[in-house]
């Protein structure tokens, strides 16, 4: 494959990050009515069906989210290729980032698919079964946070420990590690019905999702986009490789 084609592919994949943002925010957030999500731990099955699944946009929103979810995995794969060693091999941090990104992307698609099923079946089956499925899926969505912590930790460590790279500044790496570690508060989500650690709580929803998005994902998207628009020589310099 010639160099210009490779670069075009790289740039296309880099723009998948912003496309994921637009698609997921619209489908999962707006149509799926997840700004914020319903606090199912404090609701009966009937309340969840009446107050949340009664909205006709949810099934469409969740199907859209299931489609856009895997774009996150594709973006993460590009990030892993940027983290390769000079000889092209992927070190452990690169593989960890790739694994975490793939699993996170899968989750971002898989869980909305289940919520779509809940939306389609609400009103036809026992509301308690809807609540059970909805809750079960949210616990998977939130409490498998380690897959994203792993990704953020890996890319953060690469950013901080790889002193030769100039693609991403060190502060962004430390931020990624710190935010990934703060996800641990999500373990409280299933056990509380109100307050900052509830599924719609100030910390476990707004702060965790907000910092993940603004202080990690947006930041890395910007630096990845800057990187892919550099010339091949500038990319080698930015990555700290020896200039030929």
């Amino acid at each position, binding site marked *: 494959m010639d160099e210009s084609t490779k670069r075009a592919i790289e740039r296309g994949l880099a723009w998948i990050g912003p496309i994921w943002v637009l698609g997921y925010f619209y489908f999962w957030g707006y149509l799926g009515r997840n700004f914020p999500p319903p606090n199912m731990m404090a609701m009966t099955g009937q309340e969840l069906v009446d107050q949340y699944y009664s909205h006709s946009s949810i099934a469409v929103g969740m199907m859209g989210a299931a489609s856009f979810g895997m774009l996150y995995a594709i973006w993460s794969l590009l990030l892993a290729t940027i983290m390769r060693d000079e000889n092209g091999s992927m070190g452990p941090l690169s593989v960890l980032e790739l694994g975490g990104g793939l699993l996170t992307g899968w989750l971002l698609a898989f869980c909305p698919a289940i919520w779509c099923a809940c939306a389609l079946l609400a009103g036809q089956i026992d509301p308690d079964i809807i609540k059970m499925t909805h809750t079960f899926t949210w616990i998977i969505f939130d409490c498998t946070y380690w897959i994203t912590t792993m990704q953020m930790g890996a890319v953060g460590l690469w950013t901080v420990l790889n002193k030769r790279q100039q693609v991403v500044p060190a502060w962004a790496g430390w931020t990624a590690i710190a935010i990934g570690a703060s996800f641990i508060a999500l373990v409280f989500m299933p056990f509380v019905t109100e307050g*900052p650690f509830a599924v719609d709580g100030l910390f476990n929803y707004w702060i965790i999702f907000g910092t993940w998005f603004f202080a990690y994902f947006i930041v890395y998207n910007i630096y990845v986009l800057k990187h892919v628009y550099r010339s091949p020589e500038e990319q080698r310099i930015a990555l700290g490789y020896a200039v030929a």
Partner: protein
Amino acid sequence: MAELNPAGDPILEKGPGTNGIWTFVFIDMLVFLMFFLVYLSERHRVPDIFIESQHHLTPWVALLSTVALLTSSWCVAESVHATRRGDARAVIRWLSFSLLLGGVFVINKIVEYSGKISAGISPATNSFFSFYFLITGIHFLHVCAGMIFIAHCRARASQETGQGLYLKKIENTGLFWHFVDILWLFIFPLLYLTELAR
């Protein structure tokens, strides 16, 4: 251009440590600030729960932990001075004391957590205890990490004292340990003391 240590980190010409540790401490401080602000917000929302729950804590145990941690911090500071003098034996001695006192904190915390869990108190009990376990738990992990760094510096002291890179290493460790200390100086009154007067 700033001189670089062999790891490629800019060595600060004025002041201890390297850019990396200061950046890390700043970011970490912001994360804890986030925890504290959410804690205060929740305390404002359900003050009765916070008042009642705080009486289940044992401030004197936490005070002992505070004294241990502060003294440990002083020991690390002395080890940095000893490193600058090139006195490896003193470095090892001060770092050993520091580890011992850090161990007192760790044991105190484990005993405290065990007592709470045995009494049926868990992070799911109420929002105060969610914060208690979360904030002190993450701080506890920082203490453990700090002790690993201190142990590493102690293990390398006899061979590396006198080298510029070792000085930076122990300064970075000291900065991290002091940060852990300062965090506890906020956590202790916030969680253990503020409601006792009510």
